[in-house]
């Protein structure tokens, strides 16, 4: 097998976004007739690597090779010509078009310059049959359930008769029957000599289906080996194994019996019947795979989405806040994950962004004091090491500094509970360190910090307790003594139960 040139390969590719390296010298080779697993935690660089392989992004360094020949300027069009098809994690379907139209989109058969619907139907039908889609081909995709849409997405890739098939978490929304159809299909395609790159968080699937594995960790390749002779525990260790260094402040045990927030049978969004106590003075981590309902837990407590509960006590007041202004008045503050969309007003000056929670709470028609605002802004900037003119629009700042502004704006209010949604995503190491230090100082002052994070290592090294969320429920609450990346990842994946995929 090693003598055959890989159908598609990356040789030492690097990529950085706004100065933050995401991939550093990563190599991967996709051989014909092999299912290649790509593993790594959230933010390890998997999606970026796929985007490089499919030409959606251009590498800063290194090369992309097709059939052993370097392609200096890979584009999505070139990738399609080379027979590379990608099934994206975020579905790229058009809801109002039919199944057939979506499957053939961009490659419609033509007759006399018009779309040949008869031919399209025949070819789409063949592709759909492969993935077990038996709905009428004229059904609008918007009418299908998420799992069926995922199958349409896969059919769309197969319609182009690919030589290289890249699947980014294809089974995350599939039922076990659909997963079985997919794994059988991939086995067959492998037999036909297609190279498959398979990304999944479900380790048992990977063990059953794949022959080779590449593990990414913080943008570097930590393993590139055959799957023979490894087990699930070994894979988890490969994904999370890293020296945390002195990134995290020294952990000190906290002594506090005061409860900041206590809810029983709390439901909001995806979360169902959660019992949770958040203590003053602790950093409570919220872990789990992306999209299990963690965000709804924070938003529900914050009153930004409607929630129900059997009983709730928030900072001594019973009942949920039920609205953001009310939550702020009760001493809650929320820092969103998507700082550009939810956290900041990018077109407004940094200073105005910092002052907004104050504007929201002050009497509406009280005259503003520009002098006090400038002074508050200056001291916040000094405290969080935000450099430069505060009259610049917030979009002029780097991602890390934007995150600091999103945090800083709550500081003048001295919140009792700080709800953070992935505050270090896409933030450079130095800023991470500053944010960690701030959170620990905050907790040491007797405040409660709830840290939702997709970065398992920060949950382990920063938190006093970690609640792991899976499918809308808290499935495990790990105390400091029991905290390890392996424990969190297994709880998040339900690995302890060894759920059978098929």
């Amino acid at each position, binding site marked *: 097998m090693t003598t055959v040139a890989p159908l598609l390969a990356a040789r030492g590719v690097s990529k950085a976004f706004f100065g933050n390296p995401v991939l550093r010298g990563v190599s991967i080779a996709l051989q014909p007739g092999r299912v290649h697993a790509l593993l790594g935690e959230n933010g390890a660089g998997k999606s970026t690597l796929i985007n490089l392989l499919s030409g959606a992004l251009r590498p800063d360094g290194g090369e992309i090779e097709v059939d052993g020949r370097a392609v200096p300027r890979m584009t999505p069009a070139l990738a399609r010509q080379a027979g590379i098809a990608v099934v994206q994690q975020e579905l790229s379907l058009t809801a109002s078009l039919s199944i057939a139209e979506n499957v053939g989109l961009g490659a419609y058969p033509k007759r006399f310059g018009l779309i040949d619907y008869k031919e399209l139907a025949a070819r789409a039908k063949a592709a759909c049959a492969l993935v077990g889609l038996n709905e009428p081909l004229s059904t609008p995709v918007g009418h299908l359930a998420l799992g069926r849409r995922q199958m349409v997405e896969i059919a769309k890739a197969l319609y182009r008769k690919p030589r290289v098939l890249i699947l980014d978490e294809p089974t995350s929304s599939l039922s076990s029957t659909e997963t079985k159809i997919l794994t059988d299909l991939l086995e067959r395609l492998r037999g036909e000599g297609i190279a498959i790159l398979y990304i999944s968080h479900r380790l048992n699937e990977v063990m059953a289906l794949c022959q080779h594995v590449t593990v990414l960790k913080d943008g570097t390749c930590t393993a590139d080996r055959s799957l023979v002779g490894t087990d699930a525990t070994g894979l988890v260790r490969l994904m999370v194994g890293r020296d945390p260094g002195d990134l995290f402040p020294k952990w000190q045990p906290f002594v506090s019996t005061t409860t900041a927030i206590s809810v029983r049978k709390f439901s909001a969004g995806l979360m169902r019947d959660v019992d949770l106590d958040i203590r003053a003075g602790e950093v409570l981590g919220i872990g789990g795979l992306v999209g299990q309902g963690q965000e709804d837990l924070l938003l529900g407590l914050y009153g930004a989405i409607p929630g129900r509960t059997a009983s709730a006590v928030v900072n001594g007041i019973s009942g949920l806040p039920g609205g953001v202004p009310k939550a702020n008045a009760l001493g809650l503050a929320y820092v969103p994950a998507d700082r550009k969309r939810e956290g900041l007003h990018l077109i407004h000056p940094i200073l105005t962004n910092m002052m907004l*929670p104050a504007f929201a709470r002050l009497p509406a028609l009280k005259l503003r004091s520009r002098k006090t605002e400038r002074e508050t802004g200056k001291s916040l900037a000094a405290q969080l090491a935000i450099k430069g003119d505060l009259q610049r629009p917030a979009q002029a700042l780097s991602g890390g500094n934007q995150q600091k502004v999103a945090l800083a704006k709550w500081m003048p209010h001295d919140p009792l509970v700080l709800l953070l949604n992935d505050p270090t995503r896409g933030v450079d190491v130095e800023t991470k360190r500053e944010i960690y230090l701030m959170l620990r100082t905050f907790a040491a002052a007797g405040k409660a910090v709830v840290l939702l994070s997709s970065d398992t290592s920060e949950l382990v090294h920063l938190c006093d307790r970690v609640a792991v969320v899976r499918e809308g429920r808290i499935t495990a609450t790990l105390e400091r003594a029991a905290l390890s990346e392996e424990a969190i990842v297994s709880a998040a994946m339900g690995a302890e139960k060894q759920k059978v995929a098929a």
Partner: protein
Amino acid sequence: MTAWNDSAGGKRASAILKSRPFLTLAIVAAVWIVASFVSRGFGAYGHLRYLVELGAVIGLVAAGQTFVVIAGGIDLSVAAIVTVSAISLPLLSWQADPTGLVSILAVLVLTTIIGVINGLGVALLRVHPMIMTLAMATFLQGLLIIIAGGSAVTAENPLVHWLGNARPAGIPAGIILWIATSAVVLTVMHATPFGARIFAMGANPLAASLSGVPMTSTTLAVYGISGFTAGLAGVLVLGMNGQGYVGIGDPYLLASIAAVVLGGTSILGGLGTYAGTIPGAILLVTITALITVVNASPGWRSILFGSLILGLLLLSGREQARR
């Protein structure tokens, strides 16, 4: 130290020179100067004063419109509200109200309530502002036809008459009303937390709501203000005209939006100032006057008006793409 002061002062001066309100003002001045050379009598003090007086009505309607547009919405019911105000005022007259102040206040309360209903539809029923205010306009027009029919109603209100005709110290009362309103509007917009909330809401409603901005009450207030200033404009236009009739407010819908945009306020919300809308309103009446001077047929007047507005917008810079 002095050098630092100088550079800060210089920076501020250049920022003012480059700002949209100043640019719009410069265009107004340029048009006035050119027009006074071309057309005899255009540059006379009396004529320019008359232009500003006409601009006051647009300026008042556009005051509320500026609030709404900055907050990320649009109010298409302002013209109908102007008409409601101008027609209901003569109908709401009491013997026990010799100055006419009480009926003016009653009308302003009425138009503010209409605005708040717009706000309720936008904030609570989540109807798109365009649909909500357009439906409101259609509703009001129907109501006005039923109440007033085709006849004009004459105002017997002393205070309204004074507003439309008096000239204390040589300055028309309408202009004084506009100056006073402008002072309040600019203060609320740029010097209060309420004003800051409006900008935040328009720039990014999601981030504003997660920062604790009370979205519902702010939306109600913004559309209420628009109803109030449109009502005020209706009172002024009634005083200048002497009579109210169905359709008296019609010219002020497009004019108010055009004044806001010409003044540099972003139609996407979140950026802008009433300081730009003021010269924007004066620019609009100036263009109208110029076209009248040219003595073209009504069809050509409309075509000229539309083309000139488009040309001016291209001249003073289009909206920059947002990320």
